[in-house]
C-alpha cells in the first residue's frame, strides 16, 4: 500500500496508538457519564416507565465518545498548522482532496475505535445489545457519525487561526450537539421547539441509529437515520475538503 490516502490514514492511527494518555483521557469522560448518569437516573427512569436506563443511555454515550474524538481529531488540523506539519502535506505533489480524505478516514477510524471501546466497557456495567448481527449494523452508524464529525472538525479547523477558538467550539458546537441529540433522554414527550432542534441535529440520527440497532428501539426509523447521516456525512466531507483545499499558510 503506497497511496497518499493510505499514509494519511496510517498517520492518524499511529498518532492515536502512541498517545496512550489521550486514549485513557478520552475514555474517562464517557465512562463517567455512563456510570454517574446511568446509575444516578436509573431508578427515576424506571419509575417513570422508561425501562432500563443503562440500555437507553449506553448507545448515546457511544455516540458521545465518537462525537468528541472525531471533532477533536478534525480540529487537530490546527495543531498541524501551528506545529508546521501541515506545510509538509500542502506542498506535496498530491491532490489535496486525497490528503484530506485520508486524514478524515484516519480520524473517523480512531473515533470508531473509541466508540467500540465504550461499547465494550458499557457491556461490563450491564448493557446488553439485542443481537450480534444488529450490533454489526450499529457500526455502520458509528462510522457515519465518525466521518461526519471528523469532516466537520476539519472544515472548522481550516477556517481557524489557532487553538484559541477551540474552547468556543467545544461550548457552542460540540456540547449542544451532544445534549440536544436525544443521547440522554427520550425525545417523544419534549416541547415542540426542542423537538425541532433535535431533529435538525444530525447527531440525533446517529444516536437513534445506534440505539435502534443495539436495543431495537428507534424513534426515527433506521432507514431515515441512515439516509440522513449518509447524505450529511457526504456533504460535510465535501465542504471540509473544499475548505481545506483553500488553506494558505
Amino acid at each position, binding site marked *: 500500500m503506497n497511496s497518499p490516502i*493510505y*499514509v494519511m490514514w496510517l498517520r492518524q492511527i499511529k498518532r492515536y496508538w502512541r498517545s496512550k494518555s489521550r486514549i485513557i483521557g478520552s475514555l474517562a469522560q464517557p465512562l463517567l457519564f455512563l456510570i454517574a448518569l446511568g446509575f444516578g437516573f436509573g431508578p427515576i427512569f424506571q419509575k417513570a416507565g422508561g425501562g432500563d436506563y443503562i440500555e437507553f443511555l449506553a448507545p448515546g454515550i457511544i455516540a458521545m465518545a465518537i462525537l468528541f474524538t472525531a471533532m477533536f481529531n478534525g480540529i487537530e488540523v490546527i495543531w498541524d498548522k*501551528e506545529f508546521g506539519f501541515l*506545510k509538509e502535506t500542502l506542498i506535496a505533489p498530491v491532490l489535496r482532496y486525497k490528503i484530506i480524505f485520508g486524514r478524515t478516514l484516519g480520524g473517523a477510524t480512531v473515533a470508531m475505535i473509541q466508540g467500540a471501546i465504550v461499547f465494550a466497557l458499557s457491556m461490563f456495567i450491564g448493557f446488553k445489545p439485542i443481537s450480534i448481527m444488529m450490533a454489526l449494523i450499529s457500526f455502520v452508524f458509528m462510522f457515519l457519525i465518525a466521518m461526519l464529525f471528523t469532516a466537520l472538525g476539519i472544515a472548522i479547523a481550516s477556517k481557524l487561526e489557532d487553538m484559541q477558538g477551540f474552547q468556543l467550539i467545544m461550548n457552542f458546537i460540540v456540547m449542544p450537539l451532544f445534549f440536544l441529540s436525544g443521547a440522554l433522554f427520550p425525545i417523544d414527550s419534549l416541547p415542540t421547539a426542542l423537538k425541532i432542534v433535535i431533529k435538525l441535529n444530525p447527531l440525533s440520527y446517529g444516536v437513534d441509529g445506534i440505539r435502534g440497532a443495539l436495543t431495537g428501539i428507534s424513534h426515527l426509523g433506521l432507514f431515515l437515520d441512515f439516509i440522513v447521516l449518509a447524505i450529511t456525512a457526504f456533504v460535510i466531507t465535501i465542504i471540509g475538503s473544499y475548505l481545506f483545499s483553500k488553506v494558505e499558510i
Partner: protein
Amino acid sequence: MSESTKKIIDVKNLVKKFDGFTAVDNISFSVNEGEIFAFLGPNGAGKTTTIKMLTTLLHPTSGEIKINGFSPVHEKDKVRHSFGIVFQDPSLDEELTAYENMEFHAILYNVKENLKEERIQNLLKLVELWDRKDEQVKHFSGGMKRRLEIARGLIHHPKILFLDEPSLGLDPQTRNFLWKYIKELNKKEKMTVFFTTHYLEEAEKIADNIAIIDYGKIKIIGSISKIKKQTNSKSLEEAFLKLTGHSIREESASAKDRMRLRKRMHGGRK
C-alpha cells in the same frame, strides 16, 4: 557563464498584496541552474512571502514565476516535484519516528518502492541520524530536527532546494556540517540552492549570487564582489546596512509566529 545555462528560477514583476499592504512589490530576478543563491533582507522584507509564492504555497497577486520551467500557479504538481524545502520553522510530525517521517514524504512524492528504502537509508546516514531512525522526532534536538528536514527534503531528488533561515538557532558545529553537506550536494548533483539567512557572513561564504530585498523591493542583486563594489563597502554586512538602513524592523508577526520563534530559539534543545 555559458549560453546554455538554464534559468531554473525565473521571476518577473512579482507582486503580493495582503489587504492593501504590499509585501512583495514588483520584483524580478532569476537564478541559474546549479547556483547557490542567497536572498537577504531585514525582518518583514518579503523573503518568506516570496519563497511561499515560489513554492506554490501562496498565490501571487500578479507577475510571473517559472520554477524549473513550470508555473507554480498553473502547474503546481510539476513545480512541487522540482523542489525540496526546509521551512523556517519545523514541519515534522513529532509523534512519528525519523524513519516514518522520511517514508511518509517518499510516499507523498511517489518515490518508487525499490528506491525508497535505499534513499532513506543513505540520507539518514548522511545526516548522521541512521542509528536514531526509530526514535520519535519529539525527542530530537533542534539541530537534529533540522538535519532530518534537510534529509527529508532531498528524498525525491529535487532540482532546487529552498532553505528558509536554515541556520537560525543552530550551534556553529551543526551549521558547519549543514553547509558543508549542502555545498557538496550542490557540486555533485548540480542542485540549485536558494536560501535566506540573517547571518551575512554565512551568505558571503557560501552564496554565488545574492539579492538584498527590503520593503518588498530588490535593492541590489549580483555577485558579492559586485555588491561590495557598487555600494563601496568592505563587507557584505556594511553593504547590507547601507542599503537597508540602521533602524530596527518590527515584523508584523501574529502571536502564533512569535510563539513559534520563541519555541525555536529557546526550546531547540532538550
